[in-house]
């Protein structure tokens, strides 16, 4: 058998079919030069594999902003949901104003409307994750 070169890397990676693997292993048992080459390839492979797995950058990184942007696109409810929520809120306030005597309750409802009306119409049901929560999810352990 001629000296196998490329198959040595494939052998290290478990990428040889069984007949080829047997042939290469048999050759290695009698060939010093190929054993030396195998050791060198193994060393190079181990070097790359020894590089640390880096965490995703934290803080206001482009990654985090991108993830937050994509999540907000996914989680933003359709426009009709926001419109319906605003209409329901307006109806509720209107009914309360008509039915209720002019007491402190009306004042509180008006205040609620001023304070939360716009926000509720924009975010009626779903609170987006904060960027920090998002990046924590993305930076979870690699499987």
């Amino acid at each position: 058998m001629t000296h196998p070169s490329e198959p040595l890397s494939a052998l290290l990676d478990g990428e040889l079919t069984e007949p080829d693997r047997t042939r290469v292993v048999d050759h290695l048992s009698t060939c010093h030069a190929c054993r030396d080459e195998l050791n060198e390839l193994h060393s190079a492979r181990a070097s790359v594999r020894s590089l640390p797995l880096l965490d995703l950058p934290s803080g206001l990184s482009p990654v985090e902003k991108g993830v937050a942007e994509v999540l907000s696109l996914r989680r933003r409810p359709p426009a009709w949901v926001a419109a319906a929520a605003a209409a329901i809120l307006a109806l509720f306030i209107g009914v309360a104003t008509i039915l209720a005597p002019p007491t402190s309750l009306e004042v509180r409802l008006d205040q609620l409307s001023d304070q939360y009306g716009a926000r509720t119409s924009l975010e009626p049901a779903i609170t987006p994750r904060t960027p920090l929560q998002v990046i924590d999810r993305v930076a979870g352990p690699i499987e």
Partner: protein
Amino acid sequence: MLEDAPLTWEEVARAYGRKIYNFAYRLTGNADHAADLTQEVLLRVKKGLAGYRPGSFEGWLWRITRNAFLDDTRRRKRRPTAPLPEEIDRVASYSSPAPDQVLAAVRLGDDIQAALLELPYDFREAVVLCDIVGLSYEEISAAIAAPIGTVRSRIHRGRKMLKERLQ
């Protein structure tokens, strides 16, 4: 490895975001470029996930990643970020890391990263997909749209080049 499973975007981002970042970082040696690329890949995955058909998810994902990387490389080559005249010859590109990036890696004691950056792109990519990302030869073949024989040759030659540089 995930096969034939319907995935949400969040699941992909959670399972692969860090791997994509490490792939990009090891190819470029540049944290900012790697972060930009990770963001771009995740956005492309978001847009493309609905059209994904069961098959080799790894091949699909890493093909997107590689294409995003090559597109970004071409874009940066066309529109370098306003280099000063004396810097024109050393504008960084993904396929040919600037000498200062290689030197910076050496100064940090990261001789392995520096040696990786010196490999021609095709060999660096094959080695990173195999030994950093952990793909099989078949998955790498799908990702880079090349025959398995080419994958095997590039990984082998890449490792031999690395060994020469690390000696």
